[in-house]
């Protein structure tokens, strides 16, 4: 593929992956909030990190890796997580702070677990 064509393909792939990931996050968080389930953004950030760790360790060709990581990036979010943290601080909610901190720790562990699983199996 020529350089321009490859870049255009990558840009389209990133946009599609970002859109699909964003809609997935929107849907999952709507259900989480509707049902009043604890955890908030951890419900999207932890699975996205698990998948991102696995993709990064899989060593696919660049376009596939870029698109897959864009999907993970679209599913995960830091802005909504920061809002959750800000709310927990303002309400002095220990539970809210624990959920935010626990979600971060679980996300980091999930990324390592995803990469580790792929490296062990390959």
């Amino acid at each position: 593929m020529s350089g321009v064509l490859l870049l255009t393909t990558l840009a389209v792939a990133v946009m599609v992956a970002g859109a699909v990931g964003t809609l997935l996050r929107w849907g999952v968080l709507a259900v989480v909030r509707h049902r009043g389930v604890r955890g908030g953004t951890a419900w999207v950030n932890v699975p996205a990190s698990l998948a991102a760790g696995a993709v990064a360790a899989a060593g696919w060709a660049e376009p596939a890796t870029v698109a897959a990581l864009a999907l993970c990036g679209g599913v995960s979010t830091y802005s909504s997580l920061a809002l959750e943290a800000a709310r927990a601080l303002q309400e002095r909610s220990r539970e809210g702070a624990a959920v935010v901190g626990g979600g971060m720790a679980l996300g980091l562990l999930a990324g390592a677990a995803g990469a580790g699983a792929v490296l062990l199996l390959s």
Partner: protein
Amino acid sequence: MRPSRAQPLSDAPLSRPSAGGTLAVAAGGAAGSLARVAVVAPAAAALGVPAAAATLVVNVVGCVVIGMVSGPRRGAPAWLATGVLGGFTTFSGWVLDVGRLLPHAPAAALLLLLATPSLCIGGCLLGQRVRG
């Protein structure tokens, strides 16, 4: 002032979003993701800025902006908060950056590990304060 009320839970079915609203959230997510992957990341590479630093800046900027646009009662519109800012910021990118730095530059990995949540939460609070 409207009286504050607990979030209604689970009794009513989840309302189905409109086609236009769904399209707007998807378009926002596409734009936010493209800005992060195809604009900020290559620009940082061209300037010699490490990829992890670019992700950090992206996340902090997204968190400041969400603080500025989110009111205490009503959040920002979904196309902006869920779409553009959710697509722009990335939690999985932070996790990957920490993991990539850890074997070669453990001090930088630890710095990124602590700086991202601190600056993102601080940035969000700052954004809320700017909004007033």
